[in-house]
């Protein structure tokens, strides 16, 4: 390590501050999930199981919270209907996955830097480096990190079920934390293909398993650095801004039009999520 190297890195860091971020991002993967369209059907969750080699844990372990679904559908009932006899507006469904926070609370607490930020803006988990202190999960406000409490490779895929495992990614062993990766294996393939063909990644060229499966197309995935991508346009349309867009403090949202539906979950915690939700819409019939 030369002194020059050190100072260069320092200057990069300093410049990063002025620009409002610490990376020279090429891509910044992001999502928009339209709760007006989401019907809570679980297709995304199953797609995630198929794509990402998620283990099925069984009833007993599920009851202890040892489940591994990176994508889960939460279902809430309206609070103001708590006293009503029937829920007269249906349920509130919320697909919840890793929010790939820009200022992720899980990242700085890992003692071995197994969870870190990629230059793509992803919140990555290095399985091989993980020692399983589970601090990241404790510090995740969304509780979207899942821990391999057991050795699932031994139990979750009795032959020939194991033939279904996606060879593009690993099967995690016991003692390792895992979570949604925005289907990083697909991102890799798309990047490599684009590089080989000497072009930029096209919007819609690939998508995550959940977005692909969603019957109502409620999930939109794309590159927030690509001004032409559908996701960027949705974010812009709903006036939701990232931390680095204008160097804003994360929680400061300058929505000129508060009627627009974009928001991010637990935004007030300054985690700067990469997933924007669009508010659910219901007819006011009561």
């Amino acid at each position, binding site marked *: 390590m030369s002194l020059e190297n050190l100072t260069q890195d320092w200057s990069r860091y300093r410049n990063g501050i002025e620009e409002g971020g610490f990376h020279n991002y090429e891509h910044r993967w992001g999502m928009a999930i339209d709760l007006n369209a989401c019907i809570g059907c679980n297709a995304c969750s199953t797609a995630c199981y198929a794509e990402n080699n998620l283990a099925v844990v069984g009833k007993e372990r599920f009851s202890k919270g040892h489940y591994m679904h990176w994508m889960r559908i939460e279902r809430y009932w309206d*609070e103001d209907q708590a006293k009503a006899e029937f829920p007269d507006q249906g349920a509130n469904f919320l697909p919840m996955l890793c929010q790939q926070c820009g200022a992720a609370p899980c990242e700085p607490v890992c003692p071995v830097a197994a969870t870190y930020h990629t230059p793509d803006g992803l919140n990555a988990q290095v399985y091989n480096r993980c020692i399983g202190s589970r601090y990241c999960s404790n510090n995740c406000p969304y509780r979207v990190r899942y821990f391999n409490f057991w050795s699932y490779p031994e139990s979750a895929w009795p032959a020939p079920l194991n033939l*279904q495992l996606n060879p593009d990614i690993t099967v995690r062993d016991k003692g390792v934390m895992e979570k949604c990766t925005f289907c990083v294996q697909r991102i890799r393939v798309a990047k490599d293909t684009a590089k080989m063909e000497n072009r930029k990644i096209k919007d819609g060229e690939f998508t995550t398993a959940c977005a692909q499966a969603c019957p109502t197309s409620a999930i939109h995935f794309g590159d927030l650095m690509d001004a032409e991508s559908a996701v960027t346009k949705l974010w812009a349309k709903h006036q939701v801004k990232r931390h680095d867009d204008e160097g804003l403090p994360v929680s400061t949202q300058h929505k000129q039009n508060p009627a627009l539906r974009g928001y991010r979950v637990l935004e007030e915690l300054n985690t700067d999520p990469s997933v924007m939700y669009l508010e659910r819409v219901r007819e006011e019939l009561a």
Partner: protein
Amino acid sequence: MMNLKLKRREFLQLMGWSTAGATLAGCDLPTTVTLEEGKEEVVAYLSPEEYVIPGVGVWYASTCLQCAAGCGIHGRVREGRALKLEGNPDSPVNRGKLCQMGQSGVQTHYNPDRLSKPQLRKDGKLVDISWDEAWKVLDEKVGAAAKTSGARVAWFTGTVSGHQAALIGEHLDALGSRHHFVHEVINNAVGRAVNQDVLGEAMPRLALDQAKLVLSFGADFLGTWVSPTHFATEYAKFRSGTRGVLVVAEPKMSLTGANADLWLAVRPGTEGMLALGIAHALMQSGVSVPDAARPAVAAYAPVKAAEITGISAQRIEQVAALLKQHSPSLVLAGATVEGQEQGYQAASAVMLLNVMLGNVGQTIVSSGEFPFPQLRPRTGNTRDLVAFAAAAKDKALDVAFFYGTNPVYTAPASLGLAEGLQNIPFKVVLTQFPDETAAQADLVLPVASSLEDWGTHVAAYQPEQGVITFQQPLMEGLYPGTPGVGDALLKLLKMREAQKYGAFNDYFSYLQNAVASLPEQYKASGLTNKQLWEQTLQKGLLTVDSAPGSLKTNVGEITLHEVKADAEYPLHLIPSPRLGLWDGRHANIPWLQEAPDQISKVVWDSWAELHPSTAARLGVREGDVVEITSAHGAIKVKVYVFKGVHPDAIAVPLGQGHEGYGRYANGIGANPLKILSPAIEARTGELALYGTRVKATRTGVHEELVKEGRNNISQRSRKLVVTISAEQFRRTEGV
């Protein structure tokens, strides 16, 4: 050229293309068909070619058989293994999307409990035998039956269509039998009957995206009704732009109900009265009522309907007003309406609303007639189950083939099917898994999974006109020797009519020939047969346009009787289907067992949904085990207290309670179908699945109900899901 000398009509019938009297041009039949490498991402199947690069997945188009909706799929194959299924964007049914059941096709395929060897009952026990022996036994037994009375041979299947249906038909014809029983628990047979009678078409196209308001009476079109994935894609359009309003009236909240703008907990069995009440309110506001229905409508003023249904008169009037305001609308009747003893009448009352509101022709349009009757889907129902049980009891059958259905599991105990089966001397079950029916079989023939097999399918609900979807193997069979269903059928046919089918080595060549002999008018011009075959496999489907007809509006007389209270059995049992386990056929798929139910979020279990007031009356809370007793049996289920169920109802989901369906399904929960009464829908002869009365009693046992998010049903004033009004949405994003 084939050596076969057949009359053209006979030949077309052989290939499944017989039509009602059309004359056809000649056709050239290829002797051999080869496939070229796929030029696009989606390619035709063949054993590894140069486009198969280790480490790079190749996608093949096929058809999903997890339910009968006929979604097109793309399967990702790498190193000879099928890895993942996604929707086929070319399919008009699912437009590139796929539900969780469809995606779980890989787990059906790779299921560790799959059978690999045929089994024969010897000395009362099923023992593994060789394939040769299996075919020999089959030939002997069926041959013997054919000699005495071929009419005593029956097929008992789930919904089948395409060339599979054609071959089953051929097989029965060859034997001189007419016994093709088609059974599905989750069906819309009564609705089809109503459609047929009122509209003149059993399954017209429903333009959900054109509707401004959808009023669903228990039609869970996002979950389990007809073609859920298709309707979900349509729902997205319905909810964007001007944003349609969704009103759902049902006794137990379904997935569709959970997405409603207005959910009405209607008293079980009174949906027809509610529809008539709404019709009455519409009539009062000046909407004309067809003459035949007028007495029925007049009898149910909103106040009276309110009394019967438990929905307030204001609500009824509000819904009527909404229907008038948002035109065109679409009114749907689902299983809770149809599954009553007067289900046909109730569904007619619902259809009446469509007629009154002028939806027929706008949001309900003709889908035209599928040109090839042989390939048309034989849609499942429960009438055939009743009939089959009766035939079995009457010792009317000697040989029965079972495929694609598990009647021993789905039949109510009161039908006495399991005992009846004892009267059938030779039962052949074609199945992937050892299931409850296979356990009763005399010969169990393992068949290839849907990812190993060839096939053509025609969906009962055609969103666009006439589509034959193609199924092709994504990989080599896991268990060599296991035949595809088509291969097995061909083999059976060859035993009977060797001269007719001898030319086809296998189902693959049969299908190739079938495509090649497709009547010219349905072929895209300028394609050779080879190109046509490849293109068909690449797209996964073949479009056979047929001119749409026009729909009638023949509303008949509607007579509804009051639903009487039952003092001994005060509760209505709702055997509610789940998008996931479906009718129980997917209970052996670990992903689906572990996927929380969309509404209750319970995993790996059965539960009984009880309204808090009912639960309080019984003195039970969540996790308490109750015994649900009908006049025909009892089951024990854990309670799930839930406001989305009518106080007079107790809902138990379908799918669990298996006894012989592999490691993931056995010993979990209970099967509510078992305790159903054999009540019959008066007009159609269908089982009234929702007409069983039960009582629930505490057992004093308490077990944890395993579910997600168990400690919270509300957001606790956090901004997780935010709801805004549709008015605001239309202002900012409306079209």
